[in-house]
């Protein structure tokens, strides 16, 4: 297959998935996997798992990261561009249109009531997400997990420390712990 055809396929696949997928990055990733591993057979199953791991552990939106790794794997830097362009275009267009009308809409009294009610719903959604994520972590029964949770809550909520510093501090701690435990593993 010619390179331009591969790039076009990458672009169309990420565009299509990004435009019609609700429910966050993990859903898009499993659909990308279905497309490129099962249907097109361009990527091996096992390699795909590693690509997903890269997408999850890098900063940024998982859907965009997933598109980038797959684009890079299949078409190099041009593949990355094609994939990112496809992934970003649908939300860019949809949200631009919505936000152009948002302020006019907000002034309609019934829309404002609707949004007021929905705010409570969003709050509930976030509480439920935090509960789900938190309870999986708490089940691990690791003291360091509790300490990190508590300290970052205090730092963020009470002292209002910039979230970037909190992330950098915890990441730094992770580097030290990992390097230390790998050394110890090698010695014993």
């Amino acid at each position, binding site marked *: 297959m010619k390179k331009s055809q591969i790039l076009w396929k990458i672009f169309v696949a990420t565009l299509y998935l990004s435009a019609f997928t609700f429910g966050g990055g993990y859903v898009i990733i499993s659909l990308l996997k279905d497309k490129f591993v099962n249907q097109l057979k361009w990527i091996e199953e096992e390699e795909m798992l590693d690509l997903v791991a890269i997408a999850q552990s890098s900063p940024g939106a*998982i859907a965009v*990261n997933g598109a980038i790794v797959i684009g890079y794997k299949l078409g190099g830097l041009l593949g990355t561009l094609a994939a990112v362009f496809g992934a970003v275009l649908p939300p860019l267009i949809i949200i631009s249109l919505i936000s152009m009308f948002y302020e006019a809409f907000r002034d309609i009294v019934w829309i404002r009531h609707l949004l007021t009610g929905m705010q409570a719903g*969003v709050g509930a959604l976030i509480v439920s997400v935090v509960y789900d994520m938190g309870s999986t972590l708490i089940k691990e029964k690791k003291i360091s997990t509790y300490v990190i949770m508590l300290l970052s809550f205090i730092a963020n909520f009470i002292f209002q420390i910039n979230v970037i510093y909190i992330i950098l501090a915890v990441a730094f701690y992770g580097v030290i712990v990992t390097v230390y435990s790998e050394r110890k593993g090698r010695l014993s």
Partner: protein
Amino acid sequence: MIYVELFLSFLQIGAFSFGGGYGAMPLIYDQVVNRHAWLSTESFTDLITIAEMTPGPIAINAATFVGTSMGGLLGAIVATLGCILPSCIIVTLIAHLYTKYRNLKTMQQILKNLRPAVVSMIGVAGLLILKAAFFIESENGIQFSNIRYRSLLYFVVALVLLKKTKMNPILIMIFCGLMEVCIQFIFSLI
């Protein structure tokens, strides 16, 4: 200049949000509401509502939403570019190293520690959203006379529906909105 500010703000959001989905929320809140006051907490909650109902990652939706309102279409493009640039560089770099060394364990190990911090910070952003939803803003801070009791009720109903049924979260949110519309309609008749 607003375009530079938008670009730099969303560059930081793109570079430091881990954990996907809601992981970006505390950073977006910090930049967009706290630091630059581009949105009120209320508009921020509306933004999350809109992001929930449309396809696409929250960070990209936020970049487009804030970018459009602050600097039109160009603002949206600049903010979105800022948001995805770190991903493009970092992910491509790691993918390149991966094809060379095929070792991801160390990195995943390091990132495991971030998860509890991210959960806590999402919780903090959630609390701020709930505060805006439950209390009518006033200069005297939080007061009992300013509680929106109906919002508390919708919150409890939504939480029960989310936890006890497999109902789509988008439908639950719309349901909460419609309850308020109905109650206001009844009030307007009386």
